[in-house]
């Protein structure tokens, strides 16, 4: 079910109404019912995958909790009798058992994700290798179901399992409550990837009906629809045309397409997250922020701390740190120090861990080489800028630029261009083509198409561009205002007529200028496919 469909709006109305009219004790059950209904209506056949992940992770975590409790009870019972070594041995024994359950949960669910999402990628690569070695036989791709939001709910479930394994918090005792954590419908399409300890604090209520909270949540939903319908979906025809006909649209067109896509992706993804967080807020539930004005970042590192935050933190907490301190990495570090010197040896594990994380980030986005190259490209930029840090410090100690507006603006624009050019791998979905299109920007010499009206032949007329410019202006204005505090809070301080005019005005803008309905292709959120 598309967030932008009438059906979803009807569904949301019913869900909100039911949520607040049932007794507070039943709110969780109602929400779970609506969450499963949402999943069933969106991707009915894949519901079984969601159920399997929910059940296996719940029971594995339950087992981990029991083992934790048994270990503690055993140590407590024999506190006086056990020597230090014996205590260690008991802990080791329990750790082994816990590890088995953790591995069971991880392998099973990552296995499901891998089979559903990566089988055909693996087959294509095996076929490529066979061709490379001159063999003519090849494996046919398999038609597999890719359950909606599988990457999001699998990662969310695994973070819960690992946290329980680490003893960060005890497991949830109620299966239905845990199921709600995994399937909470607003975040099923494109996240954010919530953490159990954060989301569960407000997910299970009880929540009294609060008109101010409801209206605040719906205001954020409206802002999300503005980004999605007025900006992202209006840009869609031009982006699609440029991407799908690269032989015709290259050079300056590829540059325009790159910027259009950067804007479309931002408006699409952050719009979807605004809708998700807004719906949750309307129910009194706090969902973690996923973006903090990423296009205002002055470096790629800062950008990744502000873009898709929950994913970045997931990879940091559950891949980067464990990998960095894993046995093989410690050995590598030792080897590096011995053979490559202290400076490089110390950094070696960070570089390798970083490469692993960004490889995983890339492949998480999609089962194809373009995403892997995109991930590795980000990694290289991050590592290079990290290694150049001493040079930057030296440079700024000599040239006082850091506080200058022009320098800040330059850094922001540089980050936008860097990130947008890497996103071209996401656009074209073909590594050699992406490189060709990227280099065509410097070789085609057709920059005049940016000013001679050629851009008006991309499925957008001057009025569309006017709407986009207006939308962009509003987007930037809101982002600038957000730096002080939430724009909704600032609007709340205004007199009622002004508040009414602003929100109703925004509603009318979405209603009239939104790209939806007959004549527009209903588009799913871009991150839905990940």
């Amino acid at each position, binding site marked *: 079910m598309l967030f932008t469909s*009438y059906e979803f709006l009807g569904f949301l109305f019913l869900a909100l109404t039911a949520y607040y009219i049932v007794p507070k004790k039943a709110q969780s059950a109602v929400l779970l019912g609506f969450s499963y209904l949402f999943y069933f209506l969106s991707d009915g056949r894949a519901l079984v995958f969601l159920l399997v992940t929910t059940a296996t992770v719940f029971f594995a975590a339950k087992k981990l909790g029991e083992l934790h409790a048994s270990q503690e009870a055993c140590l407590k019972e024999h506190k006086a009798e056990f020597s230090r070594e014996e205590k260690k041995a008991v802990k080791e024994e329990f750790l082994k058992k816990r590890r088995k359950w953790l591995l069971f949960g991880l392998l099973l669910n990552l296995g499901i994700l891998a089979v559903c999402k990566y089988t055909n990628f693996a087959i294509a690569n095996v076929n490529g290798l066979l061709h490379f070695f001159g063999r003519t036989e090849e494996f046919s791709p398999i038609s597999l179901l890719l359950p909606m939001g599988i990457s999001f709910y699998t990662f969310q479930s695994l973070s819960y399992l690992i946290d329980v394994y680490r003893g960060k918090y005890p497991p949830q005792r109620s299966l239905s409550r845990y199921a709600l954590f995994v399937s909470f419908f607003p975040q099923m399409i494109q996240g954010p990837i919530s953490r159990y300890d954060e989301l569960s604090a407000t997910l299970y209520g009880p929540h009294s009906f609060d008109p101010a909270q409801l209206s605040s949540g719906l205001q954020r939903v409206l802002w999300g629809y503005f980004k999605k319908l007025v900006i992202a979906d209006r840009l869609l025809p031009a982006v699609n045309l440029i991407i799908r006909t690269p032989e015709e649209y290259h050079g300056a067109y590829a540059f325009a397409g790159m910027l259009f896509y950067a804007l479309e992706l931002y408006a699409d993804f952050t719009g979807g997250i605004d809708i998700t967080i807004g719906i949750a807020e309307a129910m009194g539930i706090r969902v973690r922020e996923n973006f903090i004005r990423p296009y205002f970042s002055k470096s790629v590192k800062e950008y990744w701390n502000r873009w898709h935050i929950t994913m970045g933190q997931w990879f940091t907490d559950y891949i980067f740190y464990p990998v960095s301190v894993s046995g093989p990495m410690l050995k590598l570090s030792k080897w590096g120090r011995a053979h490559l010197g202290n400076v490089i040896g110390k950094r070696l594990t960070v570089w390798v861990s970083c490469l692993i994380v960004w490889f995983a980030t890339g492949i998480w986005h999609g089962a194809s080489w373009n995403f892997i190259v995109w991930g590795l490209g980000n990694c290289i930029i991050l590592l290079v800028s990290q290694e150049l840090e001493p040079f930057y410090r030296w440079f700024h100690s000599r040239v006082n630029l850091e506080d200058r507006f022009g320098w800040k603006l330059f850094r922001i624009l540089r980050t936008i261009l860097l990130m947008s050019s890497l996103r071209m791998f996401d656009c074209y979905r073909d590594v050699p083509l992406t490189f060709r299109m990227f280099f065509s920007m410097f070789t085609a010499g057709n920059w005049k198409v940016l000013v001679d009206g050629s851009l008006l032949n991309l499925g957008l*007329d001057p*009025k569309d561009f006017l709407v986009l410019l207006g939308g962009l202006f509003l987007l930037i204005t809101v982002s600038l205002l957000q730096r002080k505090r939430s724009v909704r809070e600032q609007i709340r301080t205004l007199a*009622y007529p002004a508040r*009414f005019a602003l929100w*109703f005005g925004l509603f*009318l803008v979405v*209603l*009239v*200028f*939104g*790209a*939806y*309905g*007959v*004549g*527009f292709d209903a588009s799913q959120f871009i991150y839905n496919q990940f």
Partner: protein
Amino acid sequence: MQASSSTISSEKEALSFEALKEQEEKGRGNRKNRLSAAACIAVSAALILGVLALLQALLMPKYMGKIVEGAMVAEYYGEVKDHDMVFVGDCELYENFDPVYLWKQYGINSYIRGSAQQLIWQSYYLMEETLQYEHPKVMVFNVLSLQYNEPQKESYNRMTLDGMRWSKTKIDDINASMTKGEQFLDYVFPILRFHSRWKELEQDDFTYLFHKRQVTFNGYYMRTDVKPAENVPEGKPLGNYNFGDNAWDYMDRIVKLCRDNDVQLLLVKAPSLYPFWYPQWEEQVEEYAAANHLEYINFLELTEETGLDFQTDTYDAGLHLNLSGADKISDYFGGLLAKGNPEYGREAMPDRRGEPELSSRWEEKIKAYEAEIRRQKENPPGIDP
């Protein structure tokens, strides 16, 4: 002691009085707050509804310029509904038959409920709706729409459906007509469909925001210009000449509707040269008419009797007739209607020119009709694309 106790009690009274007063004031304040909140909500709601209604009215197509077909269905509701004959169908009716001529020559009070590419189920529902307003003696249906078995174009759907008044009939009609990708909600709130018309707004959208001009004369769309029919294209061979089950089902429903309401159904094939009317289609209609004992007139076979000349009587090379052609057809048809047809139990259509009230209504219409003829003669409308 007494004095002090009385002082205490009076103090208590004073205190309780103060408290009561305070409570009362608080209550008044709360009531005032509630009232102002309610007023705020009421004003906001009214403003929201008003603005949305205005915006919807502005953004909906007016059909007052070159394409007027979308304004036809709604015009019927402004009529005094005592017609003796109602035509229901596509452009082959509203461009080829002239109710003004039928009135002037035969005193027949008729109306055409036509719209562009009106599909057979749309005709059925328009007939059903018409019968909720009046009880004509005869209903005329043009059989060309039997060729469509499934919903066709969204834009034509809107031209027929947006003009209809809300009723169960309209809901059924929408459900039967929606093409893939259309949403029922877009009919309930047309602003959802036409929101992107902000790009196309023109003077007409403001001129006809609150009122519309009459675009037909009792449903007849008049054209006086001439474009002779030359090089009329032959019909392309079809894979299957059989009309579809859905179309036949609605044909059956039309027959039943008329029988149940004691209305004489008259099938016609208007004399348009194209879309091509295949002999195989003709056969099926003739068989159906015979099997159901229905009167059927194919005007394509009556060019001699009607005196139709495709060099002078069409404004778009044979697709539709101009005023001269429509009057020739209406003259012939009026003659048949005035006589009646005992074979099908059709009584002669009454000449109502003697009814003063009806005559005066027609007088008004004739004045406008003649003014339009003069206007078109002075400013020929040209040829529709």
